[in-house]
């Protein structure tokens, strides 16, 4: 334990393998060449959107197992989640995969949440190899949170586009000299923060205070400054949320260096793709982590990464009942392999 909310992982769990699966629009974005799997059809050949998202989740998990060179029987636990009621996509993927499963809901922060929980399970010695995954699908999220797809509605400039994608990361405590891999050194579990934002089309504004709170808490707990990180990657704050997050950090006296803060929601799409403020959804941070960030850590291009996915903990019911939107952010520190 470090400070109030951070766990120092003395066993330094190893990030063994990672894989991402996305759909066409994401494949046409700036990171297009980096994804492991790009579906051209948003139904993935299934007959409804929920099944399609389940397929996406399974694709990422299966590819990750394949890349690690193990079998699903070697995986002790699968931790994952998505945005849907009763975690439909990941629970049903769990049914197919036959791996002991823990379902997690952290809205769009699920990838960081599953990595954080997974790393702490490894630290405790309760498992030696597990998978952390998250997925989202534009069409399932639209129905869950917004309008039917064919409704002719306009989005305001602050709205974000749910990424159709999934990412899976295998973490273990098995080090080999032959295959140096990134390690997880710290985990900071965030608090739900609510500064009274009620606009469901401005999730970035709702999530920015949570990101700022978790980052401040993390830096205090570890006695570090933002400059100790080569990259601080937020999950899906988008353009509006990123600007607010940077402003909040400045106010707190811990300004971020512009080029060291990246946002997965801004990385996955280009502005020409008509996504307004940027990408969002669990699949956004999950697929960007697996396609871009982890490979860079592995190659040593990023020495120390703070991966901090943010989630807006809103439900359409609570919004109708007049509640504001609480948000959460969890942070995971990933460092490059010592041997590189």
């Amino acid at each position, binding site marked *: 334990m470090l400070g109030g909310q951070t766990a120092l992982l003395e066993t330094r769990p190893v990030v063994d393998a990672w894989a991402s699966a996305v759909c066409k629009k994401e494949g046409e974005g700036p990171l297009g060449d980096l994804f492991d799997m790009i579906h051209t059809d948003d139904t993935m050949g299934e007959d409804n959107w929920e099944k399609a998202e389940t397929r996406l989740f399974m694709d990422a998990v299966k590819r990750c197992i394949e890349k690690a060179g193990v079998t699903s029987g070697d995986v002790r636990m699968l931790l994952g989640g998505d945005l849907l009621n009763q975690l439909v996509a990941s629970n049903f993927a769990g049914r197919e995969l036959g791996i002991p499963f823990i379902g997690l809901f952290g809205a769009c922060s699920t990838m960081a949440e599953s990595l954080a929980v997974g790393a702490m399970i490894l630290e405790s010695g309760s498992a030696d190899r597990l998978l952390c995954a998250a997925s989202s699908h534009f069409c399932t999220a639209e129905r869950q949170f917004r309008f039917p797809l064919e*409704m002719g509605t306009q989005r305001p400039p602050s709205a974000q586009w749910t990424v159709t994608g999934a990412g899976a990361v295998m973490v273990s405590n098995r080090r080999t000299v032959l295959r140096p891999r990134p390690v997880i050194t710290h985990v900071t579990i965030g608090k739900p923060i609510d500064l009274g934002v009620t606009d469901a089309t401005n999730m970035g504004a709702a999530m920015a205070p949570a990101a700022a709170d978790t980052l401040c808490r993390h830096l205090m707990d570890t006695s570090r400054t933002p400059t100790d990180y080569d990259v601080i990657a937020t999950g899906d704050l988008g353009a509006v949320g990123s*600007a607010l997050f940077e402003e909040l950090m400045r106010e707190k006296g811990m300004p971020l260096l512009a080029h060291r803060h990246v946002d997965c929601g801004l990385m996955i799409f280009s502005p020409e793709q008509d996504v307004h403020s940027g990408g969002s959804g669990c699949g956004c941070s999950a697929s960007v982590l697996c396609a871009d960030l982890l490979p860079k850590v592995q190659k040593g291009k990023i020495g120390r990464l703070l991966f901090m996915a943010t989630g807006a903990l809103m439900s359409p019911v609570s919004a109708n009942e007049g509640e504001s939107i609480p948000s959460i952010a969890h942070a995971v520190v990933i460092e490059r392999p010592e041997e590189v």
Partner: protein
Amino acid sequence: MRGSQNKQKDERYLKLVDKLTPNSDLAKGLIRAFWVGGVICVIGQLVNDAAKVWLALSKDDAGMVTAVVMVFFGSLLTGIGVYDRIGKYAGAGSIVPITGFANSIVASAMEFRREGLVLGVGAKLFLIAGPVLVYGIGTSILVGIIAFFVGV
């Protein structure tokens, strides 16, 4: 419950949110809504006139035919995936006319078809259009009662 100190901070943050959130381009939105909504209404008027002239219908009957035709085209364009693009461009210009009403019902039908004909389409058909019907019919009843007693 939030403390007063926290509440104060809230308002400061919400002001910051307002400052950093880009607004929709109102002028552009109004112009688009005006011309698309206008075109839809002109088409409606043409249908109405055609019904009166060619079908020799009364004013009331022609109005009914116009509604039927416009709802048909609104539904057709929704079904072939065009109306959502019009709506994205025109905003209220394509939501307010009766074609927008058709769009909201057909879009719901398409979305919830997978949940079955009874609990899917049946239960959720008026998910978006429901409030319009409830308050539209409610208001008309109210106005009817007033008209009855005032004797207009």
